[in-house]
């Protein structure tokens, strides 16, 4: 076991896959010298050359569109969009082309690309650099959607995303780049897509979350434990496919479900999970998500948007009251 950050673990996973398969490459802005926004590509251009870590013009449509063509043509490109906000400049390429090519062409095409687009609040980067649109992509047939919450998962899930034969929207959380955690360097296996992780076992309520909110849910569970309330925390890891069985099993046991996400609550993926559980189990369900406002810049305003542990704990208490 080694301690490394979420960004370092992602770099390790990418490097392992690039060593393993010469068809794996990445394209995006400032990947070479800068090594990516958080160093997740650091040194890889020196090691693999400018044809496999490609510095591109500021041309989001083409970063994504070229990845589609390169994937169809037999390589495994990683389209680095830097921010999911900028990926909104290339939605047609991802949704109309990447997601549909295999189907529209009756199975003739495979599009094994990774559309890498970090989400979330990092602090003071405001409305156009902090969005969490993961729910959009769960709604698009043909796409897999991944939201890693830990360094180990950011290595293992990235490896799985790269090996996946279909397009994967890979959404790291910008707030986690510097967070360190245990990674087993010897274990080169990918983390399977679609399998949730029980981050903390519990019996009174099931709290489902992903990405940066998992730590918030765990913090809430810890404080609730002090009050004798036992919360089970599930890290979904993959939003599509999401681990329905694991969630239903847990919620069936605890009898209560709370979904927590940083994304705007209205139209968020929490609705899918809560509705599904309510339909199947008829147990109390609840959702916590962001207010329907753009992400503000100033500290107190940004803080007002965030879902903190105390609010999660309070919501759980309400459900148990």
């Amino acid at each position, binding site marked *: 076991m080694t301690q490394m950050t979420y960004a370092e673990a992602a770099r390790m996973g990418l490097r392992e896959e690039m060593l393993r398969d010469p068809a794996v490459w990445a394209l995006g802005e400032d990947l070479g010298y800068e090594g990516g926004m958080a160093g997740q590509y650091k040194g890889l251009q020196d090691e693999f050359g400018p044809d496999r870590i490609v510095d591109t013009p500021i041309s989001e*449509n083409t970063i994504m569109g070229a990845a589609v063509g390169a994937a169809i043509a037999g390589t495994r490109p990683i389209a680095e969009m830097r921010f999911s906000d900028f990926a909104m400049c290339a939605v047609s390429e991802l949704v*109309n082309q990447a997601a549909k090519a295999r189907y529209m*062409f009756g199975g003739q*095409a495979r599009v094994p690309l990774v559309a890498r687009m970090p989400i979330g609040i990092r602090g003071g980067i405001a409305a156009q650099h902090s969005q969490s649109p993961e729910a959009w992509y769960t709604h698009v047939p043909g796409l897999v959607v991944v939201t890693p919450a830990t360094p180990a998962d950011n290595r293992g899930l990235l490896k799985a995303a790269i090996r996946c034969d279909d397009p994967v929207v890979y959404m790291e959380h910008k707030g986690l780049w510097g967070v360190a955690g245990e990674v087993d360097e010897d274990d080169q296996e990918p983390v399977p897509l679609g399998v949730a992780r029980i981050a903390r076992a519990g019996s009174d309520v099931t709290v489902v979350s992903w990405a940066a909110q998992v730590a918030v849910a765990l913090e809430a569970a810890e404080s609730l434990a002090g009050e004798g309330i036992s919360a089970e925390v599930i890290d979904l890891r993959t939003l599509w496919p999401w681990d329905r069985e694991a969630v239903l099993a847990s919620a069936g046991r605890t009898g209560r479900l709370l979904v927590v996400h940083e994304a705007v609550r209205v139209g968020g993926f929490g609705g899918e999970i809560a509705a599904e559980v309510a339909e199947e189990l008829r147990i109390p369900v609840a959702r916590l998500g962001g207010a329907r406002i753009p992400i503000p810049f100033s500290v107190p305003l940004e803080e007002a948007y965030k879902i903190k542990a105390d609010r999660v704990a309070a919501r759980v208490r309400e459900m148990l009251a």
Partner: protein
Amino acid sequence: MTSNLANEPARVAAMYRKMLLIRAFEEAAGESFFAGNVRGSVHQYIGEESIAVGICENLRDDDYLTSNHRGHGHSIAKGAHPRAMMFELFGRVGGTSNGKGGSMHIADFSVGMLGANGVIADGCTISVGAAQAFRLLGKDSIVVNFIGDGGINRGPFMEALNWAKVYELPVLFVCENNQIAATTTTRLVTAGEGIAKRAESFGLPAHTIDGNDLFEVDGTAARVIGEIRNGSGPQLIQAMTYRLRGHFAHDQAGYRDPAEVEAALGREPIARTEAWLRENGMSADEIAAMRAEVDSEIAGYVAEALAAPWPDEGTAFTDVQDVGAPVRGEAVQ
């Protein structure tokens, strides 16, 4: 310019036959649309056949072609089988996509036809990426992207021009300039001197030719494609042509000046190629025979398509994705 094609009547005849095949296919597609046997949008390539045939004559099966909404001609020229294509238009088993795609999503990967596209200019960025893959995989194949004179005003196409040149990719952009986009005269929405000047401003050699002149298309394509395969970097061909029909089958093109259409008919490529063949030893009977043969071939596909089985509704749920594939039934649907 002319090419050595003029010294090869047999090759001209073969290309002429391909043009006839496209023309017959498009006429049949239009009729089938009006007969209610083909749904959706059917964008016919009638009057532009010499471009696709002249370009693709100079491609290999392992070269790629990316198309737009008007993709039937490109597909046949690249080697897709008109029978499977007709089945696709009819939405039947045996179609190029077994009925999942239809006219706007015809593709035949076995001959490097990567697909028609329902979104204007999205094929352009796909093309440069495919060319980048060829380089990574050490292949000497090239990619040809067809774009219309209306499509050139979309940002992704312009980005792709820059991108292709920055990485010196083996891409040939072919702008089929029929002077119109749906009902809009493109001159009115296109600033400057046109696509050739624009492409040159990105450093791409640009060649404007008479797209209805099979010899000029073939000659230019032979030279340019050869140069690209030898590492010249991307180039662009602007092929001047004319859309003889409406934007799609159900467009009567009432906005067209009949005199203009009349004049265009005098320049249409099949008649011109036919005239050359007559002057170069092909008899009227031989031509009539070839036409009859092609017409009956296509008619046969239409009949077969009409009789072909519809896909099982269960196939609607396949070919989506491996992980997270749809499961029928309430729960996930």
